[in-house]
């Protein structure tokens, strides 16, 4: 291990040996190193958000035929820093009748839930915060805490729009967790492990090739979890002011804002890790620091797709959002999970009878899975065409609450 190929572990080793030399015990050294590592990953995550906020605003501007931020620094790249300084100077407003504890706890919960995912992301073969052996489940567990933050924010604000936003958040986030978990089980089946880094190690063929449907379902339901367009009806401006974050101001609003952008990048990084091979790439095995570069290239490609979807899609209605989840994504994920399990087992049962070289086995397996996925896609498209929704049942006519009085006859004539 030398400094150039693996700087993080080199520095960690050096620091550990230094502290051991001072007479600290091994467990204390491990504890301190983990502590420093957690702090570094957190700071890194937040610094990355400074960049992604600028990137997203710039892309947003381009799509809408504007320039985007262009005043501070070259191409406006430092625009976020004055924004941060400005948000620090804003007053904290607590609405009358708000539940103070829950009101202040909510932004912290929603940011920390996102940041917790970074603890298990493998940036390179050797650069991993913690290689939890149930990493996939950990991602799901942390998502639940994020939902909690949004619910608390909506409830504690003492504002009916906030509360409505929170209700929608529960409906959306809790129900989109179902297809997400089912889609996450497909990589677990294919990789035979639940640890995130082991899953990356198992992707000699990327899982997006072996199971494009699982990648699609995971990607879509993750976007729904972040609550961004087209799934942003928990903060729909035209209906709910700003949803659950209506009453927040200053840094508390800033935390929700940063949490949203960080979440968007985190799901891109997760998709890249679980389906696009994470840090895998040429020479990433020998030189771990190269893995970091491959990882971020893949993550930013997925992030670009997330931003493009956010910019170009209109907002879904709440019944469309729920129908899409329960009548399309969930059944598709169930069918895919069952078929993947069956096909994978059958493949390994049949395999000894087929004359095939050792190196071709992963590719043959990937081909079989890809074939099954394509068949499922064709059948799904056919079913969607056959059972197309012809029209929506109208429950009631919209009634204007305030009706303008008839103008007096003198005005008309």
């Amino acid at each position: 291990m030398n400094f150039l190929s693996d700087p993080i572990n080199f520095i960690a080793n050096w620091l550990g040996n230094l502290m051991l030399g001072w007479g600290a015990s091994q467990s204390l050294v491990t504890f301190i190193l983990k502590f420093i590592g957690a702090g570094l990953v957190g700071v890194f995550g937040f610094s990355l958000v400074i960049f992604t906020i600028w990137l997203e605003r710039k892309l947003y501007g381009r799509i809408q035929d504007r320039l985007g931020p262009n005043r501070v620094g070259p191409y406006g790249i430092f625009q976020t820093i004055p924004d941060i300084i400005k948000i620090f100077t804003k007053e904290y407003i607590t609405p009358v009748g708000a539940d103070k504890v829950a009101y202040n706890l909510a932004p912290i919960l929603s940011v920390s839930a996102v940041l917790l995912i970074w603890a298990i992301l493998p940036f390179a073969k050797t650069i991993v915060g913690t290689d939890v052996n149930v990493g996939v489940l950990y991602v799901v567990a942390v998502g639940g805490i994020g939902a909690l933050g949004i619910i608390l924010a909506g409830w504690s604000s003492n504002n009916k729009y906030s509360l409505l936003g929170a209700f929608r958040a529960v409906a959306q986030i809790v129900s989109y967790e179902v297809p997400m978990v089912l889609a996450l089980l497909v990589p677990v089946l294919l990789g035979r492990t639940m640890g995130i880094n082991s899953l990356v190690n198992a992707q000699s063929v990327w899982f997006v090739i072996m199971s494009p449907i699982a990648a699609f379902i995971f990607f879509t339901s993750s976007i729904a979890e972040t609550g961004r367009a087209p799934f942003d009806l928990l903060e729909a401006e035209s209906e709910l002011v700003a949803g659950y974050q209506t009453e927040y101001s200053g840094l508390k609003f800033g935390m929700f804002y940063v949490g949203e952008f960080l979440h968007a990048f985190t799901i891109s990084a997760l998709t890249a890790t679980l389906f696009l091979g994470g840090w895998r790439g040429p020479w990433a095995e020998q030189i771990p620091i190269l893995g970091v570069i491959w990882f971020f290239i893949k993550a930013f490609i997925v992030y670009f797709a997330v931003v493009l979807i956010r910019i170009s899609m209109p907002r879904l209605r709440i019944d469309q959002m729920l129908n899409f989840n329960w009548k399309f994504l969930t059944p598709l994920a169930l069918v895919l999970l069952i078929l993947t399990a069956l096909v994978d087992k059958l493949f390994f049962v049949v395999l000894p009878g087929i004359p095939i070289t050792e190196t071709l086995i992963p590719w043959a397996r990937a081909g079989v899975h890809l074939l099954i996925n394509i068949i499922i896609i064709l059948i799904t498209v056919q079913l969607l065409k056959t059972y197309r929704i012809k029209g929506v049942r109208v429950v009631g006519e919209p009634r204007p609450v305030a009706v303008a009085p008839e103008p007096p006859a003198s005005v008309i004539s």
Partner: protein
Amino acid sequence: MTPEKIIFIVVALVTLGAALSVVISRNLIHSALWLILALFGIAIFYVLLDAGFFAVIQVIIYIGAIAILFIFAAMLTRRVMQDTGPQSNPNWWLGALIALLLFAGIALILVNWQGFTTSAPELANPSGRISQLGLALVSADQYVLPFELASLLLVAAMIGAIFVAGEKKP
């Protein structure tokens, strides 16, 4: 004193305090929040015991699902959840006595148990533990019957919930 011990003591104190606050807090949502903290403390104990799977499942089931359900139910009741009555009834000494006896009984059994003083043995095969658990749940001579019964119960509960909440056809 090792860092693990310090973590254990701090987490134990926080968990006990949170559990106490669940019952003495007058606000329903605050009770639910304290409950979440207590459940989180238990998840940390699982981590300290090297049982990462149970820790994560604890968070998913109890915090991600049940606590959110509690809060969602309480959210629909904005004004009625401020409890203003007395917090104990005339039988409080009976409850305290039973709790004390139960605690004494459990403590007595634990003190007499020889595993109480020895340190926990290292668990073998850390990576294959989840697959062992999975195999144990579906193998015929182990836990397949309780597992299937629990699934059947859950399906029945789900059908019941759909029946209760579903649209009644006239």
